[in-house]
């Protein structure tokens, strides 16, 4: 009997080690939750003044020099992040990662315009799970 005791204790320890791992797998197997926020507003603008977008438009002269993608959210349940992916035609130009904090948050990303940037653009707004929340389309003109 004394000889079997260490074996029983060993099995119990192994079982304890296994339990947390199986709990994690169950959690992963559930459907991913939706975004922990609601997109209230998403616009392209020339400038941000007082945390508000100014000169909202869908065509920007390259002479403006700089443009921004403004996004505001509410219902942010936890600190998370979003991405602004800037494309010229179908070519990815830049990716900006922006933090969102509860409960409401507004954030923006900007790019400097150059002569070669003329043409159709789009900005994809993605959540932390890389899902597209909104796509904004605009043009950079003369």
């Amino acid at each position, binding site marked *: 009997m004394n000889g079997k005791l260490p074996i029983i204790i060993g099995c119990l320890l192994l079982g304890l080690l296994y339990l947390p791992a199986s709990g994690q797998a169950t959690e992963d197997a559930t459907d991913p939750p939706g975004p922990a926020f609601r997109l209230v507003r998403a616009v392209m603008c020339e400038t941000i003044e007082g945390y508000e977008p100014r000169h909202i*438009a*869908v*065509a920007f002269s390259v002479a403006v020099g700089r443009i921004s993608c403004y996004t505001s959210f509410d219902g942010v349940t936890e600190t998370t992040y979003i991405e602004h992916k800037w494309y010229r035609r179908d070519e990815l130009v830049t990716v900006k990662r922006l933090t969102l904090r509860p409960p409401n948050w507004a954030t923006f990303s900007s790019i400097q315009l150059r002569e070669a940037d*003329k043409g159709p653009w789009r900005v994809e707004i993605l959540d932390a799970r890389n899902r597209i929340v909104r796509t904004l*389309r605009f043009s950079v003109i003369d």
Partner: protein
Amino acid sequence: MNTLLSLLGTLRWQDVVDVLLNSYILFRFYVLFRGTVVLRVLAGIALLWVFQRLAVGMGLIVTSWAMQGIIAGAALIIIIVFRNELRNVLQAKNLRALLWGFPQQHVATPVEAIIEGVYDLARKRIGALIVLPGRENVHELIQGGVQWDGKVSKEMLLSIFWNGNPVHDGAAVLEGNRVTRVGGILPLSLRDDLPRQYGTRHRAAAGLAEQSDALVIVVSEERGRVVAAKNSRFIPIDDNLSLKRQLTEHLGAARDSSKGRLHESRKLTVAAAVCLLCMAGIWFSFARGMETLVSVEVPLEYLNRDPRMQIMSTSVNSVRLHLSGSNALISSLRPYQVKAKLDLGKAVSGVNTFTLSEENIVLPPGLWLSRIEPPEVRVALDMPINKDLPVQVDWVGTLPSGLLLESVTVTPAKITVAGAQRTLAQISTIYTEKVRLDDLAASGQLTAVLTLNGASVRLVEAGRDRVEVRYTIRRRTP
């Protein structure tokens, strides 16, 4: 010797059949036309061809040109001049005679009966004209007369030429052991060098002999003299032996003997061997002579593609083939005779790499493939799919000062396009043609035409290549 052995080692069964078949055709030509003028003319033309090749080799421009012309004309001349001989051969009674039969001389002609008959006629001073045809058809040269089918005998000849017989004045035609025609009128010779004592009967004999290979025996009515006409000469017949010699020589009666048959067999064997050697020589000169290298550019044909997939790109559209073969075959090579084919039956979606080999190349017989450039071909295949893509207006130009293009609505917002899966995976937007902003001063609506990103992408609804664009313009606030 080693070269010859290596050549023989590369022979295919088709090459052997090629040589044997053509040798046999040549041999049949000899068998069917031997003894006629046609064969001699053909031999002459062959000799001319040899001279022509020599002239070309020596660089004699005019000579080779003239001989080439003569050879070309000779083919026409043969058909026109020797039409009767050709027809005799081609109108053979059966296929056997044309393809593998050996025309035999009618050795059964009763020479003795003819000799006795001729000398009885001469003794009795009965004029006679006897035609013994050779290989050529004489019936077209003889006019009138009566068809006859009597067995040749001394009595038959005497009765035909007996003065009381209505057909005694004409010629009797003897073929084999039969009298086939009597009372025939022969063409008269126009020669003016005939002896004065020769009358119309001799002139007729000379006329037929000149125009054919027939032997014509004339018995003079006035003097009882016997003369044989052959080709363009008269042969006086002084005795039985002389007549027998002429007859046997003409009829080929010597072959009747076993010695004659042996001689004939030997002659045909030699002819067959000569034909075989000639054709083998010609074949080697054509197929293996003067090994030449050539490279040709051939379009690559893609076959057996899965109908559900499209060829998106290929590394090459044509391949360069390095071929070797005889100079004659290379010179006569035509582009359509060489093909390069690639079987896409086992190709999968994506980039497929194929190694080209002899199996991909179709060549005419006698040519060999040395190299293929490039040895590998890459073919990208893809599956066509439909995809809904958002439409975006491609604005250009400049808005009038102080204005902002605030918003745009496109109808329909999405368009369905069809194209290759891999191509469409890289496309996320359909753009319109460039729309100028310069003339826009207030909000409004316009129609814009869509542009497609590549030739491999098309609209599912071909007619719907336009979208309605509503735009809002407002004044820029300070």
